[in-house]
């Protein structure tokens, strides 16, 4: 091949690179490993992730749920995982149709009119929602409760730090654990942002917050980090939310140390042209055959460049596929049953822990599958003692909330057996 193109050596392929910036030595990375050596090396690293083998009550944005076997099996079909963005709809209908189904399922579960093809994750979806609210309302302030996931708020701050959007953080009600101080909400506010269930697991009264936001002409942005809750709780759309964003990891996607997960983004039809991200829509060919295609791309960066609604270029394709398969395999009945089991098991654990001497539940609001526990001494000490007994007991709130030293967040899902819940209770005694 070299001869055919008139070259003598592969070095000559790089003639256009000036000599003085070429690398004159071998890269200092690993020697090539055989397949079995790679597996051995990675298994050795994975083995020191001992937390993955223990009963765990961690949630806080990443949840342990059972994923039907077919989910991981189907996403490994070559046609799905080794394809790219459906630029050529005639040979990408498989991808386009599942995106369309994903958009529909997200719209149904959130009770919103439209949803996009997915975002990187819940945190970036929330940041994009801030920017969209600013575009829609032409107002430059948002009010966000401090009961919204702290890492999501950090991401939103990064995204907006060079724009002209002011972020006001509103204190949650420390007795209820939900709601909070709305005094910052005024006629300059683009949006009120609330998470439900919030970071403390408390279910928010979305309808009344929507009414308050709408009174001053602001949008209500609802953030959902635990998508399984949508099977039981009143849908944000039913409560008159304007934008609903969230994390779809709970829909059959492994924790994988925090990613890849999948963000979702839903809104009202009238705002669709202000929406970030990819959208898939119905289209017909000249013979009247129904197909699907990416649409409304005039919002996007490859056309609008610096005036685009977002710099996002793809979606989270394969993870959106996993979520779609999960939602369809579980179906109407499964999505409701799994949500109810989460609520029941968490209620059982909450009651049992509250009954231990010295322990209490500091917030009065109803919870879904997570709740805050106040212990008799610093939570870090309690959790460390529990860890010594082979259980990851939850998350110390002090990681994110200064002054809440004795409190920790416990998450109980359908994968937490009664035996393990009882073990946790015993370890706390």
């Amino acid at each position, binding site marked *: 091949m070299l001869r055919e193109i008139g070259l003598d050596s592969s070095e000559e392929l790089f003639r256009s690179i000036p000599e003085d910036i070429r690398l004159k030595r071998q890269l200092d990375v690993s020697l090539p490993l055989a397949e079995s050596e790679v597996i051995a090396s990675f298994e050795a690293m994975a083995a020191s992730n001992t937390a993955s083998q223990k009963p765990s009550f961690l949630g806080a944005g990443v949840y342990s749920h059972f994923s039907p076997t077919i989910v991981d099996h189907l996403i490994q079909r070559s046609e799905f995982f080794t394809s790219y963005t459906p630029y050529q709809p005639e040979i990408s209908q498989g991808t386009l149709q599942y995106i369309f*189904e994903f958009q529909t399922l997200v719209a149904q579960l959130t009770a919103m009119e439209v949803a996009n093809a997915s975002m990187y994750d819940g945190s970036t979806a929330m940041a994009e929602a801030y920017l969209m609210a600013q575009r829609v309302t032409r107002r430059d302030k948002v009010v966000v409760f401090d009961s919204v996931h702290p890492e999501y708020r950090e991401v939103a701050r990064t995204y907006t730090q060079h724009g002209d959007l002011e972020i006001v953080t509103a204190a949650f009600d420390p007795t209820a654990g939900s709601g909070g101080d709305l005094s910052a909400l005024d006629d300059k506010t683009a949006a009120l942002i609330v998470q439900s269930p919030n970071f403390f697991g408390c279910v928010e009264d979305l309808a009344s917050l929507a009414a308050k936001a709408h009174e001053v002409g602001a949008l209500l942005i609802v953030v959902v980090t635990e998508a399984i809750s949508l099977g039981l709780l009143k849908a944000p759309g039913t409560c008159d939310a304007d934008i609903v964003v969230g994390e779809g990891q709970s829909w059959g996607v492994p924790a994988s140390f925090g990613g890849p997960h999948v963000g979702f983004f839903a809104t009202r039809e009238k705002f669709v042209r202000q929406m970030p991200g990819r959208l898939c829509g119905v289209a017909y060919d000249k013979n009247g055959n129904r197909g699907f295609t990416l649409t409304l791309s005039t919002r996007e960066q490859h056309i609008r460049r610096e005036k685009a609604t977002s710099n996002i270029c793809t979606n989270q394709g394969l993870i959106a596929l996993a979520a779609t398969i999960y939602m369809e395999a579980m179906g109407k009945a499964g999505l409701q049953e799994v949500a109810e089991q989460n609520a029941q098991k968490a209620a059982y654990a909450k009651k049992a822990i509250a009954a231990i001497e010295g322990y209490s539940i500091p917030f009065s609001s109803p919870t879904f599958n997570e709740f805050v526990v106040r212990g008799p001494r610093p939570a870090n000490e309690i959790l460390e003692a529990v860890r010594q007994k082979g259980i990851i007991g939850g998350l110390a709130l002090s990681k994110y909330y200064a002054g809440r030293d004795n409190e920790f967040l416990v998450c109980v899902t359908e994968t937490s057996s009664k035996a393990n819940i009882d073990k946790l209770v015993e370890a706390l005694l």
Partner: protein
Amino acid sequence: MSIKKVTQHPSQNEALIFERSQTGRIGYRLPKLDVEAAEIDEIVPAALRRDDDLADVPEVSEVDVVRHFTRMSTWNYSIDLGLYPLGSCTMKYNSRLNEKVARIPGFAGLHPLAPEAESQGALELIYRLQEALAEITGLPGVSLQPAAGAQGEMTGVMLIRALLDERDGESSRERRVMLIPDSAHGTNPASAALAGFTVKTIRSTADGITDMDHLRELCSEGGVAGVMFTNPNTVGIFERNIKEICETVHNAGGLVYMDGANMNALVGVARPGDMGVDVIHLNLHKTFSTPHGGGGPGCGPCCCTAELAKFLPVPRIEKKETGEFFLNSDHPDSIGRVKAFYGNFGMMVRALSYIYTHGNDGLKEATEAAVLNARYLGHKLEGAFAKPFPSDGMHEAIFSHKNQAKNGVVTLDIAKRLIDYGFHPMTVYFPLVVEGAMLIEPTESVGRADLDAFAEAMIDIDREARENPELVKNAPHSTRIGRLDEAAAARKPVLRWRPDMEAAGKSA
């Protein structure tokens, strides 16, 4: 018709899952609730619960779901089926080994907030990949947090903004111009806008590289925060003046951002850090073979100079003298977090597996093969197709539809006709600087026979364009659906299924 490669193949029709749904069907079973059930009203009051019985959510069996997705999958082209020469996308082979190691339960099942002492393996893996990417790029500061290329870009330009703000204080306000070549990917200006920069466009020369005179002129106008460029650039040509570009921008007080989309042409051969680049993003889903997954997930690490490193996103993954790995958020100058947790960890596992499998010489060999393949294909096609630039490309070959357009056949038609020959089309109409651009990137994952078959198909299409242009203009002829009316779809968008959707769509 002279279709050389495609033959009829059974592919079944498949409705939307919502159209398949049958009341009462289920496809799952959960273990029985093993705790005593409380009254649901006592847990969550009725006012906060949904009461719509999840209307219209599908009810299907497990085999329904398996057939549904299996059938749909057969409508997709994929790398595993054949050459997928999307320029700028680096559609190389996705090793099954990488999939296997990413699914090791100790990785896949690990919660990101697990105690550090019990997640040392994951932190070590991230640390090892950081070290490898620092070596490959020659840039010592690395963050793997960005979720995709566009987010890596945003992170990179925010690092530049942070350095300027610190260096220049109040007067940094006068320095908000980001220079971006007219050939750049659209994410570049969109990312620059997020960092508060305004964009000025640098022209390209007739040779397809940055116009140095124009760059100097723009720099002399002042206010330059930096430049964002791609190298090899988006027409596949190495910017041979790279050192002068960096010097010119540095002398003007700006910084240099390099879009690493085309790193597959450089790994093991040249390093951005040695060229004068300050910050780069990589696409692990391109150069390091993590699967494109139908459009994500990606992973867009950001690599930078030691000077910029203190601004990288937090938490950073570091190693103590004791050998223990830890998450360090104590970097007060950081631009902040760009994503919850630590990035797309599963993609990092796959990329490190790719690096280990290839090793030091294998990485360079892959680069050589990628460039050789593109050069060979370019050579084969340059008789039939117009080459917009005289210079040799690196890992991509670029052509325009100039010759075929004389017969009314344009790039879109050529792309669609390629489908009939059994190939995924190349990237079309990008970059914008070439009219009717066809950007072809074969990657290293293809042998001579497949390159020859592709070249033959292209040459056949060129002949068809002259002899039977209608055949090309109406392509594809072998797919389950023809070209879609995208304009109608955008006029009255139908973005979700509803029971009455069919009627709504047709009336559009």
